[in-house]
């Protein structure tokens, strides 16, 4: 589980269903460095990724080579779920057709279609194929059709192209005004090196 922090609010959302998730968000977590160490795994209860034996050996090799083998470090798209807990912001936009998640990292984006359309299966996307629906105020995104070219974190945790992710985005505080959560106006990577918030056009808090 990863908690995201938001900056920015705006006009009324032009749709009736679901929650207003719009704004610029970033994970308050070290999950990108190491999912297990950051206590990002809530199931199984031991907090460990339940690898098959061969895959555990591959993860160890990945870890040993992580300096050069991490696809994200080579500017490949980050993949899912990793994109949600990178240490760089992303912006959520919404309209009646879809929820759009636009990442600063690798100028990557995803379109989570809400129109009940079926998955585009078997095409091997780094960012998968996302189809979503609302369960009350929770956006549920079903993501399939992955490639095996992305990792889960910088520690070599990984997946195959049979990956299937179900993501749930629930806004915990609708005002977005949790203490310290709002970035100062105009802050950016250069001015605020300890608190990354902006390095791409339009991602201005």
């Amino acid at each position, binding site marked *: 589980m990863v908690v995201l922090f938001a900056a*920015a609010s*705006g*006009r*009324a*959302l*032009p749709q009736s269903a679901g929650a207003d998730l*719009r704004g610029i968000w970033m994970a308050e977590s070290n999950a990108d460095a190491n999912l297990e160490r950051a206590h990002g795994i809530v199931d199984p209860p031991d907090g460990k990724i339940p690898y098959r034996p061969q895959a555990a050996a591959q993860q160890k090799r990945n870890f040993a080579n992580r300096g050069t083998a991490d696809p994200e470090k*080579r*500017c*490949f*798209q980050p993949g899912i779920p990793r994109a949600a807990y990178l240490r760089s912001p992303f*912006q959520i*936009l*919404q*309209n009646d*057709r879809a929820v*759009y998640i*636009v990442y600063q990292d690798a*100028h*990557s*984006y995803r*379109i989570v*279609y809400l129109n009940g*359309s079926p998955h*585009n299966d078997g*095409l091997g*996307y*780094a*960012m998968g194929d996302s189809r979503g629906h609302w369960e009350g105020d929770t956006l549920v995104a079903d993501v399939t059709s992955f490639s095996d070219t992305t990792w889960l974190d910088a520690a070599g945790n990984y997946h195959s192209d049979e990956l299937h992710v179900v993501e749930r985005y629930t806004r915990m505080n609708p005002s977005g005004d949790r203490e310290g959560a709002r970035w100062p106006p105009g802050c950016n990577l250069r001015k605020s090196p300890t608190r990354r918030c902006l390095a*791409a*056009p*339009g*991602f*201005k808090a």
Partner: protein
Amino acid sequence: MRLFLLLISIAAFGQPATFEPPRQAHGHPDLQGVWRNASIVAAFNVEGKKAYYNEPGGASVIVDPPDGKLPYLPDALQKANDNHVHRERDPTGHCHTHGVPRSLVPPFPIEIVEDGNHVVLLSETEHSIRIIPLDGRPHLKNYHAWAGDSRGRWEGDTLVVDVTGFNGRTWLDQSGNFVDENEHVVERFTMTGPDTIVYEARVEDPTVYSRPWTLSVSLRRQTKGTELIEYDCIEGERDEIHFPGAASQKH
């Protein structure tokens, strides 16, 4: 009487019927949807070209100057000609993003998203993104990027986007036409029918061109259900197959 008839005929036929665009809740036109540039030739050469194996031809999309030619300064023309010989330098061949106005004219779809705060242009090609705030905030300072820094506003029913802050590395097409870091673009998006947006870009770049020039293309709405697909090209690509020049030299 003759004058009267003339006036009648102008009223009836001389003026195009004003199109009433679909509108968002805030009253401005709803430009959302999946679109594609109707002039495929623009991706190959904005000045127009003959058709060739695997490459469509067509007329120039430069509407000003009237001769359809880019008004290069002499040194810049030399560089454009050199680029044309070395089309393997095309930044998009190396999977860099297209810049402006090139991101509006590839033979790939784009999606326009408006959510009341921003207009966002998502390109299928290079999975590039432009986020255009509409709240009147000023341009970023000392910012230099492939897509530049966009600020939008509505002038009547036309979305006007002012773009500066370029990195000076983008081309305008596959032929080697180019801009540098002094580029300044004013784009105009006007819906002229339910499935048509007229896109105009006025480009100023005093270190490359002797005068501003204007490009115009139509964006056509794609059939219902069209979705952008993930683009498989990694920045820094060195595979020869991605280099248009290298590929065409083998023909």
